[in-house]
């Protein structure tokens, strides 16, 4: 217990929450009228036999209560906050649509995830995935070689069905840069082929990039905005380097 407590850093918790406390978050945390209209708009609430503790306003209140303590929170409180913000919200924003004030609970949850990050509380897989972005530029740790090879392979497969169909790589000045979820080349390469089929038939002027091609941003889900900015920048850099008009992202 004593060892664990040493990992807490109340100062960092407070500093992080001060940094992250924007005008909107402060307004939303303070103005909630506790009307309860968000309850049955949440799939967690509905899927857990209408457990009141699953309602959006309760989760937001939990975040506010933790912040109010200015970092003086015990391990149990932090763990409970961690469970809530990672395990009981998908940040889908449906509750915001039903809130008379339009309170963005997802932003509050995202901020609280960032607070958990500041205390070293992040799901293990998410940490690994974020490291992958920095090391390989994509969440699945695919090498550039693997990526290009997958595209070539898909191109060959497709040409049997659609002669003349190609996957342009690093074509400058194309209209469209098509980016994918790194799970596609890793596990479902046929998904890429489906998109290529559409582009080919539509006669689209498009390209794929040899780097900055993963459009997922799992750092964002950790409320780790610095890493999230880095990940977004990878795609932006690719788009600027290839001088494309727009970036399309996979479904």
């Amino acid at each position, binding site marked *: 217990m004593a060892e664990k407590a040493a990992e807490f850093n109340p100062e960092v918790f407070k500093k992080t929450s001060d940094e992250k406390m924007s005008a909107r978050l402060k307004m939303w945390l303070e103005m909630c009228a506790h009307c309860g209209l968000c309850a049955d708009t949440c799939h967690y609430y509905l899927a857990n036999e209408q457990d*009141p503790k699953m309602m959006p306003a309760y989760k937001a209140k939990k975040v506010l209560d933790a912040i109010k303590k200015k970092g003086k929170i015990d391990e149990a409180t932090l763990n409970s906050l961690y469970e809530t913000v990672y395990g009981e919200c998908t940040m889908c924003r449906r509750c915001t*649509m039903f809130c008379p004030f339009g309170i963005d609970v997802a932003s509050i949850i995202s901020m609280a995830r960032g607070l958990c990050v500041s205390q070293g509380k992040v799901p293990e897989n998410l940490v690994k995935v974020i490291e992958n972005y920095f090391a390989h530029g994509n969440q699945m740790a695919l090498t550039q070689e693997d990526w290009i090879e997958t595209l070539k392979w898909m191109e060959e497969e497709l040409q049997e069905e659609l002669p003349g169909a190609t996957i342009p790589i690093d074509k400058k000045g194309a209209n469209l840069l098509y980016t994918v979820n790194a799970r596609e080349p890793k596990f479902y390469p046929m998904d890429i082929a489906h998109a290529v089929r559409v582009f080919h038939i539509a006669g689209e002027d498009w390209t794929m990039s040899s780097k900055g091609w993963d459009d997922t941003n799992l750092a964002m889900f950790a409320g780790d905005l610095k890493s999230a900015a880095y990940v977004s920048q990878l795609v932006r850099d690719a788009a600027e380097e290839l001088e494309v008009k727009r970036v399309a992202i996979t479904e």
Partner: protein
Amino acid sequence: MNLYELLRGPLLWLSFGVFLGGMVVRLALFVATSRKKDKPIYRFWSWKWLWLSIVHWIVPVNVTAKKNPIVTIVGFLFHICLLVTPLFLLAHGVLWYESWEISWWSLSEKVADYMTLVAIGCGLFFLVRRMVAPHVRVITTAADYVLLAVTLAPFVTGYLAYHQYFDYYTVMILHMIFGELMLVVIPFTKLSHFLMFFVSRAVTGMEFGRRDAPSW
């Protein structure tokens, strides 16, 4: 100066001052902080989505009105009576005229009396709902009860004063204290939604709107 004169004069000025000043400060703080920390608001500013978002919730044309018609009706009645009754009450109009020689349209005394009862009734509905419904109770804090009481107190005492139940002078003094108290607490509590409702609706409307998604 007796207690009545104190509440009718300096304390009334003070409470209007705190109320209006407090709201201006809140708005100014929001603008100042948001310029630094909420840049997307200004980057994606859209008058269209701002107004659409406000209008769809200031009249009940939205998903929640469909999903929760009873709470919506009670909520709208509550807010209409809360705002209209004190502003257009004949007795209040007389006070304005005595002080400033200004006057405006006022409600008939009978209508104002009913509206007061409606405000109190709606408030009681929310009180019971807060105590009974599990999903409301779980997020309820002591402040929620206190603020509901602070909001209803001017109406209850106003009703008693009009009908001259109990000692008129005492009831009237209480009515003034509660009325001024309510004004004073608005900027510092969740009652600040008096103004921040518009700010929040605007920013969320634009945030959803920039993705072509309505927030209603």
